[in-house]
Each structure stands twice: as C-alpha cells, then as structure tokens.
C-alpha cells in the first residue's frame, strides 16, 4: 500500500479517516439519507442503498431541500453519519449540519473542499485520512 498527499480547503475543522464512498451524483441529505441507518434512500440516486456511516464521503455538491443540515446533524448524533465529507463545491447546508453537530454534541465531522483535479485519484483510494485545520486541510490517501 502506498500513500499520497493532497491539499484541500477547510470548511469545517476536524480530523478523520475511513474508507472512501464516492458519490457519482449530488445528494440531498433530507429525503435522500436515512439519519438512523446512514443509508441513501433517494431512489433516483445511482447509489441508492449505499451506507455512508463511517466513510469519507466524497460528495461533489449538495442538492435539493434546504432541510439537509438537520438530517446530517441527526445522523451524526446517532453515530450513523460519515466520518468526514469531501466536496467539490462549497455547500452551506452540508457545512451547517456538520458545524451544529460539533457545537451541540462535540462530534467532529470535518468538511473540506478538494481540488477537482484530485477527485479521480481520491475516489480511487481505498481509504483517506483528512486533517482539516485553520490553515488548510491535508488529505492522505492509501492507494
């Protein structure tokens, strides 16, 4: 196993590692994620049925309902949320859900903005480690 490092932009602080789950399409957590089980339930999503729990979730962008933040915060509270989220576009709804879980429960789900050029390589990794701090984020990939 070899490791590779990537730079990213911190959206929500924290550190986490886990297996990669790369979504092929944007997902709305509300209506799209079961907060109790972490399962994707959007029937029109290509990865309907997949489980985000404990993963480094590669979510290109948010979508749909503005109620996604509470679903994410609730999934994190219940331990069913992802370990971290990597995005290609800033998404306020995702950021807020992760921030509130941190404020209310002290649970870290770091969120970072990855470089589009790295997306393929990151998605091909078996697992990722994200360290998102005030001066930027570093991702290390086990290929």
């Amino acid at each position, binding site marked *: 196993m070899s490791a590779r490092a990537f730079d990213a932009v911190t*959206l*929500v602080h924290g550190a986490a590692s886990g297996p990669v789950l790369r979504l092929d399409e*944007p997902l709305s957590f*509300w*209506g*799209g994620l079961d*907060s109790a089980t972490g399962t994707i*339930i*959007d*029937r*029109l999503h290509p990865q309907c049925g997949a489980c985000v729990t404990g993963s480094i979730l590669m979510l290109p*962008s*948010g*979508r*749909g*309902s*503005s*109620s*996604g*933040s*509470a*679903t994410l*915060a*609730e999934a*994190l*509270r*219940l331990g069913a949320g992802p370990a971290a989220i990597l995005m290609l*576009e*800033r998404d*306020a*709804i995702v*950021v*807020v*859900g992760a*921030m*509130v*879980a941190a*404020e*209310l429960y002290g649970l870290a789900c770091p*969120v970072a903005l990855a470089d589009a050029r790295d997306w393929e390589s990151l998605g091909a990794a078996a697992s990722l480690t994200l360290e998102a701090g005030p001066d930027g984020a570093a991702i290390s990939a086990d290929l």
Partner: protein
Amino acid sequence: MAVELSSFDRELVDGKHGGGAAFAMRLLVRFAEAVDARAFIDIEAAHVDGCLYHGRASLDFTERMIELGGKVRVPTTLNVGSVDLIHPELFRGTKEHAENGARLMRAHVELGCAPTFTCAPYQTMWRPRFGAQIAWGESNAIAFANSVIGARTNRYGDFIDLCCAMTGRAPAYGLHLSENRVARALVEIAAIPEDWDSEQLAVAVGHAIGRRCGGLIPAIVGLPAGLSEDDLKALGAAAASSGAVALFHVVGRTPEAPDLETACGGLTPELRLQLTAEDLREAARSLSNLDEGAPLGAVSLGTPHFSIDQFVRLMPLLDGERPLIDIFVNCSRATLDEVRMRGWEKPLHNARVTLVADTCVYVSALMKPGVGTIMTNSGKCAYYAPGNLGVGVAYGSLPECIASARAGKVVRL
C-alpha cells in the same frame, strides 16, 4: 480571507444583544467563512424551516436558543412542522414523534417566530417585496422568493435561517449580490405536449432543469405567456427537488428577466439546453413509478401548500361521483381560514377531502397504515414521497388526480 465584522456584528458576538444572538452570530461567522463571504448585510425578514422534527438535534438546537434567552430580531415566518396543530387527531405516528414535533413548533413560536407553518409564505401577508434582502429556508420558497418576487436569499437551511433571524444579519454572498443573479444556462423549450395544462408543463420543465442545469441559474425561453404564480410555484418546487435551483428566470415573465440579455447580464450562457416535447414527457414519466391502472391508497395535493386559487380550480373538479379513496389537501392556516369563510369545508369533506394545515402529507404520518401507493399533482411530492414515506407514487395533472381518486386507481386522461 476573514469576514469583516461591523461594530454591530461585534456587539452580537460579544453578547451585548443576549446569549441567543451571540450563539447565533458565532455560528454565522463560521458559516460565512465556510462560504467565503467577506461581510454581513442586514436582512428584513426570515423564513425558518427548522420547525420540522428530524430528531433530537433540531429540538436540542432550538431549546439551546431558548435557554440562552434568544428572540428573533426581524419578522420571521415558519415553515411546515411535523404535526397539524389545528387537526392534531390526524397524526398517526408515534406519541413521542407527535409530542416532540409539536414541542419543536411551539419552541420556535417562543423565540418570536410567527406561527404560519407554511411552505408557501410568499402567498401570505408576509410576502417580501422586490429587492428585499431576506434569509429564507425551504427550497421551494427560496426559489419562489428569488425568481418570482425578485427578493434576495441564498439557500439557507435549518439552523442558519434561525441564526439569521436571531441576529437580523446574513453573510453577503451568493444570491444577495446582483452579480451572482444572472443566468448562466439558457433553456429553450422547443415544443410543448399539446394535451398538457400549464401546471403539468411547469412541473416537467422544473424537474428537467433541476436535473440538467447543475448549479447554473437557468433563463427559460419558450414558455407560454400567462403562466400563473401557482404554475411558477410548481416549477420552482420541482426544480429545487431534482436540483439545487434557488433562482430561475422565465424570460418575459419573472421580474429580473424582462428580456434574455438582461436575464443573462449580457454574458454568453455556459450551457445551452433544448427541451423537446418528448424530453418533457420523459421528465413527467420519470416522476411516476406506478403504471396506469395501478391501485391507489390516497391522493395528495398541495406540495407546496395549496393556494386559494388552486382551491378555486379544485372545487368544480370535485362535482360528481364521490371518490373511492381519500384526497389530502395541504394548505396554510391562513388559506384554511379562507376556505372555511367561503363555505367550502363541508363540500370538500363530502368529497372525501381531508384538509391538512401546518404540515404536509409527505413529511408527516397522516395516511392510514397500509397505504402503499399515492398520486399527486406535485413534482416535489412525487420526487420525495417514495424515500420519505416508502410509497409508490404516480404523478399526474390535477384532473387526473381527481379522476384517479374516483376510480381508486391510476387514471390517465
């Protein structure tokens, strides 16, 4: 780059306006950093969608605000909750869910929000004015406020909409700023299925642009003149379900799009999309997973909440044979009052209509256990009901929905 705080913003952070406002402002500052905003602006109103119970997290957040002595600083409306406080007997979920849902709704009222409990606040006395800076939650309401009214809001989600309400401030980014409101996608409606009414057309166009425009603001040309506000409401709701559409321009119809050049801000669109009649039929078909003739358990109308004009359309369709299955119509308290004043409650009841206020069938437990299939005239309800309720769904026009309710199965006209 750091966010620049005004002296008032600093007072908020420092707790000079109370602990609730301080907690809200601290979250807003981190949020502003995350979305790369450089400063805050004043807002004149907020619409909060955090009163729908998604579990403990939303209740814990709101109760923290109350403990800190928080009150909203601008007029604030509320989106739908989990229970109908006017007809609490309709709720069929667990007692715990009913209690927590009602508690969350009342907690928001305690913070000073108006108990509107509607996803169509733009069709109430709280409608914002053109150009108003606002902080709204609820995807369909955001799309309507930006597109149809020309008010300015980003897609604020739960928690942050309340933080904006508690401070009267919003980060200056995205759709608050003129330069970000121009269309970047041109959507040309090349042909329209001849047998469709304007609502069907609006839903199909909305669903298609949501799926195909990505994050780009679309300018739509080729729609017939005279689309009603309810049609545009249906378009925005469908587009904001299948995509992240927060603003669309209908050239010649919506206020920031008197013509194509103005809608695009003089720029060349990044994406050009042509929708044929077959594309639109396919978009409508993809909203159904039930075939014609499939047995139905219920019909649900009013996602977003039914307006009084939509009741005017509905009433004559109900003349005739009594439906075999229940028809739920979701509306605001204010619209319900108007329906009662017009003497329509009894004829609606006689036609098997259950009026639902404060909430919506697709986010609450209102249908009899065992209802496994529903039909709706809403692109948004059709999109979310299978995931939320675990039901099969048929999308159809309003007349098709009523004909299907009479037959107890999916009827196509």
